[in-house]
């Protein structure tokens, strides 16, 4: 299954969490900023693998706290995946 198809099956893309939203981990992505929902529970590492993101290139922030790759995310969690790569070469 290609990545886009897998996402379509498991992720609801939309604005912020709302009363109509189903259960899921609310994930904020950057550049461009957007929000998606992913069915939990899952570890941070599994979430990054699911999104095809290289762990070395991002930080994961739950609420206002950094979390490690083995941290377990549940459907009530709000997380931000913040890219850390910047393009300036000085």
């Amino acid at each position: 299954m290609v990545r886009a198809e897998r996402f379509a099956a498991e992720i609801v893309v939309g604005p912020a969490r709302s009363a109509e939203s189903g259960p899921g981990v609310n994930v904020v992505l950057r550049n461009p900023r957007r929000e998606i929902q992913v069915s939990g529970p899952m570890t941070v590492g599994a979430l990054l693998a699911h999104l095809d993101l290289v762990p070395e290139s991002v930080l994961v922030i739950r609420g206002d706290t950094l979390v490690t790759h083995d941290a377990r995310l549940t459907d009530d969690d709000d997380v931000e995946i913040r890219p850390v790569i910047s393009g300036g070469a000085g």
Partner: protein
Amino acid sequence: MKCRRCKAPAVIDIRRHNAAFCGDCFLHHCREQVRRAIDEHTMLAPGEKVLVAVSGGKDSLALWDLLHALDIPADGLYLGLGIGDYSDESGRYAREFAVTRGLTLHEVDLRADFGYDVPGAAAATRRAPCGACGLSKRHLFNQVALERGYDVVATGHNLDDEAAVLLGNVLHWEVGYLGRQYPVLPAGSGFARKVKPLVKLGEREMAAYCVLRGIDYQVEECPMAEGNRHLGLKETLNELETRSPGTKAAFLNGFWSRGHDAFAPAADEERDDLRPCVECGSPTTAERCAFCTLRSRATAGDAPVELRTSG
């Protein structure tokens, strides 16, 4: 995961060190890495005046914060690049950092002080925007340091930046650039010393440092950098790093310990050929330096230079 130092719950894991840290121990780790880099490369001497090149991004603000945490006083210099909302917002982060900590931030604005901005220079010269940006920064950070009596310019280049630059230089065998790529560039006629105290810390660590210290920084990527070569090199290195943690540090540190000396003569030869720019007096191998050439192509005339200081 548990913190390697105190066994409290960890908030960040660093695979190349095979370690995880709690917040307090991670901040200690960052301070230690900067202190070691400064000591190993004799970057700074007591009492020297230090100028930090501040962009409003994570690396430069973290560097400024870390230097003060290590009791190394430093002022900042922000360069307004004229890249629309991105520059406006970046400047706000730099000013906010300085004001809330009572630090001195000098400012230079390309458009107000030199009559051009990065998008305009890129269009006028048909040069990649990152090239015009980097050239302007290198020239003006050095110029302001000399004019204002600073001994050292400290930049926020981290391990990832340097590894990506090294890969780019190796792929094209830029022997002069390889000879100049080092954590310290000594002062010389027309040059302030340049130091890179973050070379032992990765990009992810710098972002984590800012989050843990509550430093607000420009998270968005520069709109002009999108898809540039440097980003591509970083992505490639990060894929290698994911498969084999420690690859970037081994590549970079191996070059500095075992490869750099072979290229140093090429850089020395270039330095021997330097003479003053006929326009601004800065060292150059041509009649007119690259900055003055860029500026003259991007503008119709000269604009007076006036520095502003806040904080």
